[in-house]
């Protein structure tokens, strides 16, 4: 496209109206020695040409939607109804900005109000914000909210070692200037029951994930009480896979104080991991410590229902250095995707998706467990992801699946990358997108690898 619409005549007329002779005069205040550098960008392409280049680049990638895939670890391949992208493609939604002018932003504001309601219903919580960047930054904001609930008087936070490694890392990045004591994941193999025991009266929060990074459903029954008692009202924050909530009892029912997670499974593509969506909900009594935008219902001067951004005195543009967070731009259009996804699937659809994930993952686990050389490691019930101990390093197996097998298969996640004690352990994700034949082929390929590996070892 042509990026500026001005004709030469218009340009001259405008310069004249401003009272300058030429374009350069508008930049008189830029020191001359720095003005108009040569940038050295590549020669510009037309739309026709750039699309060709981008098509080539995109085709240089292996598309996981067109390839049997068993990779999860935080980002999942789910089916997205066509209606989601249809709504997201409306220019009225995606070319608007933060709804500062409520009267001409009722579309966005109403959708966010629905989003907040859906997240509350899904998680069993009282109030949700209009998003964080992703699950990891939502985790960091959960830590900061809990810290602020105790007005900074407590410095200790306990993390379950089974919390997503990226979440644990981002919590540390965000809080490196706050002087916190972050414990719980020093010994990565420590069981949850023992980690909870680290919660004491100096602790402001305990952060746990369910299904955890290994896919296991953590026993939340009694956990909130234990954290509240040991930690004298310390907060329990729970990260959760939103699809699992189509089936499982929500953390809110177990007494969690904050529930958050990554909303990528709710109608967003893989997109190489971003943008996703950090959803976040808490109890009403903590709403003033919560970060992010919040939409509330109100009425106009004629009494008609409408929606506005509300409780803004928590935010950076009002409270500046005393704000609950610096967040401004968030994941607006992603919240719309989640809203449309949850509406389109609805009560029946989300439950069916969750059930398909559960049953297919268990079918896959059962078949893999029957293979010689492979052991499914599952001490607790799991949802759509599980750990397999393999006969060889996972990198070798994945290389075999991708390059040596009859056709390309994208294998599971190599857990030794984050958990050194889990060498040869693969995290396998199975969703509604994995057909039975795909699972059966994966199992066959794993068997073939074991046979081939056995021969190699013996040789």
């Amino acid at each position, binding site marked *: *496209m042509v*990026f500026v619409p001005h004709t030469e005549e218009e340009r001259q*007329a405008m310069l004249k109206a401003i009272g300058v002779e030429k374009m350069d005069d508008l*930049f008189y205040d830029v020191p001359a020695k720095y003005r*108009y550098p040569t940038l050295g960008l590549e020669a510009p392409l037309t739309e026709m040409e750039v699309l060709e280049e981008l098509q080539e680049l995109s085709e240089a990638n292996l598309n996981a939607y067109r390839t049997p895939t068993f990779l999860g670890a935080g980002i999942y391949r789910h089916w997205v109804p066509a209606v989601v992208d249809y709504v997201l493609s409306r220019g009225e939604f995606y070319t608007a900005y933060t709804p500062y002018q409520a009267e001409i932003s009722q*579309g966005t504001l109403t959708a966010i109000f629905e989003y907040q309601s859906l997240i509350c219903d899904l998680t069993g919580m009282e109030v949700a914000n209009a998003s964080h960047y992703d699950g990891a930054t939502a985790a960091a904001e959960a830590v900061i909210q809990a810290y602020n609930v105790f007005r900074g008087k407590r410095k200790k936070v306990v993390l379950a070692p089974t919390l997503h490694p990226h979440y644990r890392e981002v919590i540390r990045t*965000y809080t490196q200037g706050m002087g916190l004591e972050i414990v719980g994941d020093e010994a990565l193999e420590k069981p949850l029951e023992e980690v909870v025991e680290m919660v004491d009266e100096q602790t402001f929060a305990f952060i746990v994930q369910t299904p955890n990074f290994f896919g296991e459903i953590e026993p939340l029954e009694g956990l909130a009480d234990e954290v509240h008692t040991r930690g004298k009202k310390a907060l329990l924050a729970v990260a959760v896979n939103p699809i699992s909530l189509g089936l499982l009892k929500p953390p809110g029912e177990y007494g969690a104080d904050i529930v958050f997670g990554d909303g990528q499974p709710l109608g967003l593509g893989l997109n190489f991991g971003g943008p996703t969506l950090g959803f976040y909900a808490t109890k009403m009594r903590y709403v003033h410590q919560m970060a992010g935008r919040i*939409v509330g219902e109100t009425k106009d001067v004629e009494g008609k229902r409408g929606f506005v951004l509300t409780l803004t005195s928590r935010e950076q543009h009002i409270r500046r250095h005393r704000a609950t967070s610096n967040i401004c*731009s968030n994941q607006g259009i992603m919240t719309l995707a989640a809203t449309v996804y949850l509406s389109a699937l609805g009560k029946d659809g989300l439950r069916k998706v969750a059930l398909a994930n559960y049953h297919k993952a268990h079918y896959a686990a059962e078949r893999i467990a029957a293979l010689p050389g492979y052991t499914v490691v599952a001490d607790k019930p799991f949802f759509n992801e599980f750990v397999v101990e393999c006969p060889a390093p996972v990198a070798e197996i994945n290389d075999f699946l991708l390059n040596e097998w009859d056709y390309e298969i994208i294998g599971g996640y190599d857990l030794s990358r984050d958990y050194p004690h889990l060498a040869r352990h693969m995290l396998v994700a199975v969703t509604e997108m994995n057909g039975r034949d795909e699972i059966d082929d994966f199992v066959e390929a794993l068997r073939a690898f074991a046979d081939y590996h056995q021969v190699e070892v013996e040789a």
Partner: protein
Amino acid sequence: MTEPLIFELSIPGRKGVRLPELDVPESELPADLLRDDLPLPEVSEVDVVRHYLRLSQLNYAVDKGIYPLGSCTMKYNPKINEVAARLPGFVGIHPLQDELTVQGALYLMYHLQEQLKAISGFDAISLQPAAGAHGELTGVLIMRKYHLDRGETQRDTMLIPDSAHGTNPASTSMSGLRVVEIPSDARGNVDLEAMKAYMNERLIGIMITNPNTLGLFDENLEAICQMVHEAGGLVYGDGANMNALMGIMRPAEIGIDVMHFNLHKTFSTPHGGGGPGSGPVGVVAKLADFLPAPIVVKEEDAEEEAPLYTFYDPPKSIGRVKSFWGHFSVMIKAYTYIRMLGDEGVRRAAEHAVLNANYLLSRIRDVYPLPYDRICKHEFVVEGRFEDAPGVRALDIAKRLIDYGVHPPTNYFPLIVHEALMIEPTETESKQEVDRYADILLKIAEEAKTDPDLLHEAPHNAPVRRLDEVYAARQKILRYRRDQQ
């Protein structure tokens, strides 16, 4: 507005989608872990499409007309960007796939890093930050860690001009540092005299927005950078206003050490009703080792024909600032845009952004009070008040603009201007559209004197009339409740 909520359209038993029959045997479910009720809407696909289409029609957007929201750079979002980001080979890649299977994506990220380096003059870029404020936090943490790494643990003070975005002080205090506000001088520049008192061993640095939020190029910028550097501090550049300067000046050359870009402002990616943004951070060489992990590097291998693009963790990294690799699909859009502009195109965009702003200012300057009378950059700030219409405020003017079918400017920011109206037309608006906006502003100024109630009661022609924000804050109705409706 009569559009019900999606919950109010729900009919028990109605279904919208059909899923394939389960093709594997069922396993036993953990009975004690199951939820009793899943209170989601029960609607058809037709219900969903019509509901959200009707909602969309209640919005104003760039695709409808001029959206001169100051500081937000609401330029037109090229449609090719959307096509590019939706190519199956981009949407369909998992972030943990083998690097050899995502070379197209890594190539794009590497070359976007290179494009941003060329435009800014920085030596290294991280694409990981998710938005401008996120980039600020990243940059401030880098500054902090740089000083700590040099053993200068006493440094704890960040200077922030009083015209700064609220995210600057918020990012600084999140990093555990002390904020000192620096006033602006009579020409709208940072007050150099006021800075002098802080040029000591406690200085972390300064966060400076240039052009600043008044839309003015800080005439002291070079001096500020020198002064801060001499005191051992670093200069953070808030790149929110880069649209005025791309192709005009490279921030690194004048002395900025670290800066975030807003791909969703300067580089044409859509704002999405609030996001996603993308806030890459650029740094000078001495800060490169502190960037958040990972960044993309190119490995030239003599034996292979094509170079291999791979992730690299800088050795002194502040750590990861989000999961995975950043907002990849936003990066695709920015890359596409810059690839279509080239050197001349980026300069032309900046020039016309500045031309449009100054032209609009020239059209209204005799009517709207102008606190700082200088050639502006991509935006300017006037006061939304008139001596001969004492009851009229910036808010009234903003709401009256809605009646004329255009988007109001940012109002009540920056905080140092009374009744501020901050106007940024952007380069993609034609002279006709800018003229139309000027005409409306002039007409409203007239109405303020002849019929002020027309302004006080505005908007009259919107899906809803003026909304009661106090009521919302007091009632705290933050979700739909079946039992209460």
